[in-house]
């Protein structure tokens, strides 16, 4: 009960903070970012501070009512953010259900702020912002998980057990990094150079052989090898993607971004397949 009142108090405080900071933020952003004709109409609380967008004031009929609604929505968003660590208090199914519920509440209040307050011109952009919010959520979840994992490693050490793999198996993935650099960075550079020496205009090696054959095969085979040795290593496909990214801009252009997926997706598939093989046919030392 005491804990609940603590959370209620925090939610109330953040509601007040959100309610008071939202108009200030809108005022600052509208003077900095919006074109002159789109700047806020109302300047309710201070002579030079605009608190709502003109579109919102127009939709509500009065700047005062619009400012009130915006503050309420800002307060609601603040209150929802205030209880964002509450789902992490438990574990298992409760954690998943509470996190999903909290994400829905956050996405809803955030979308309401974006649309009801007319911060966006086009509602079609709302899913994009919600996707960014989901990404932020995933990052926070990952951060929490790594924290818990480090705690479990400490407990294992204190109990005299094997501390187990590193978080997300980053250290176990490291030995494969030179291979990734070789395939994703050195090979494209060499192929591009070789292509330039050819008489024909089509970059056969860097534009065809590399993305459609070598990248998928190398990604898949190395993924299988890593999966067989270390199990699922989620950072490996990511490393493939990130390592190839500079080549896209250095040797090609934005249209070659799919090359990154041509190595990352087979790497992920190979890694999962290797892990499944490892589970099906356990070796001595793997069990």
């Amino acid at each position, binding site marked *: 009960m005491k804990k609940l009142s603590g959370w209620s108090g925090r939610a109330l405080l953040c509601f007040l903070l959100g309610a008071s900071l939202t108009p200030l933020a809108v005022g600052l952003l509208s003077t900095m970012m919006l074109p002159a004709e789109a700047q806020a109409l109302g300047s309710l609380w201070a002579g030079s501070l605009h608190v709502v967008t003109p579109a919102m004031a127009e939709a509500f009929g009065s700047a005062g009512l619009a400012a009130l609604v915006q503050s309420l929505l800002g307060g609601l968003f603040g209150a929802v953010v205030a209880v964002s660590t509450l789902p992490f208090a438990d*574990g*298992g199914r409760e954690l998943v259900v509470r996190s999903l519920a909290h994400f829905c509440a956050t996405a809803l209040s955030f979308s309401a702020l974006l649309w009801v307050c007319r911060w966006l011109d086009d509602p079609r952009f709302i899913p994009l912002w919600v996707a960014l919010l989901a990404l932020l959520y995933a990052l926070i979840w990952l951060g*929490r*998980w790594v924290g818990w994992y480090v*705690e*479990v490693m400490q407990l294992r050490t204190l109990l005299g057990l094997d501390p187990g793999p590193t978080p997300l198996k980053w250290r176990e993935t490291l030995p494969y990094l030179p291979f990734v650099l070789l395939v994703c960075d050195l090979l494209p550079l060499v192929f591009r150079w070789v292509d330039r020496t050819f008489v024909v205009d089509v970059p056969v090696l860097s534009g065809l052989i590399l993305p459609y054959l070598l990248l998928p095969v190398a990604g898949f085979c190395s993924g299988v090898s890593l999966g067989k040795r270390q199990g699922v290593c989620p950072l490996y496909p990511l490393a493939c993607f990130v390592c190839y990214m500079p080549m896209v801009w250095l040797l090609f252009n934005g249209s070659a971004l799919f090359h990154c997926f041509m190595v990352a997706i087979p790497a992920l598939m190979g890694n999962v397949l290797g892990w499944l093989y490892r589970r099906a046919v356990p070796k001595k030392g793997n069990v």
Partner: protein
Amino acid sequence: MKVKLEIEPGRQEPEIIILAGAESAELDRLVQELSGLALDPIPVWRGDQTRRLPQGDFLRFFADGKGVSAQTAEEVYAVRLRLYELEERLDPRRFVRISNSEIVNLEMVTALDLSLTGTIRMTLNGTVTVYVSRRYVKKIKETLNLGRRERT
């Protein structure tokens, strides 16, 4: 080190007194070991029969809705004590509460895993699986640190 046994007719409980010239780590360890041996065995029930088992035999004590049960490597027994009463009687360097309804013997832990949803799964004696509430992780660490400090 000299070991001397004196029999005192009429004495209810054995008493161990160590005589030494100065404190030392070895002496502390000996005191700890003897204190551990001196811990009360726990009375357990199976039907109408009762037994007193040494603390080191237990894997865990858990509330199962009807009351409290105790699990050893072979059997599950009923215990006529509450968990908080058990906590007071058990060796604090060896037994720790891992959730509202469970106390485990840390010396029996053979594996510890974390799921994606943050659930900590503890395996006792290679066979029994229990779940650790994250609210108790700090206490477990304190207990383990205490045990380690006392061992070194």
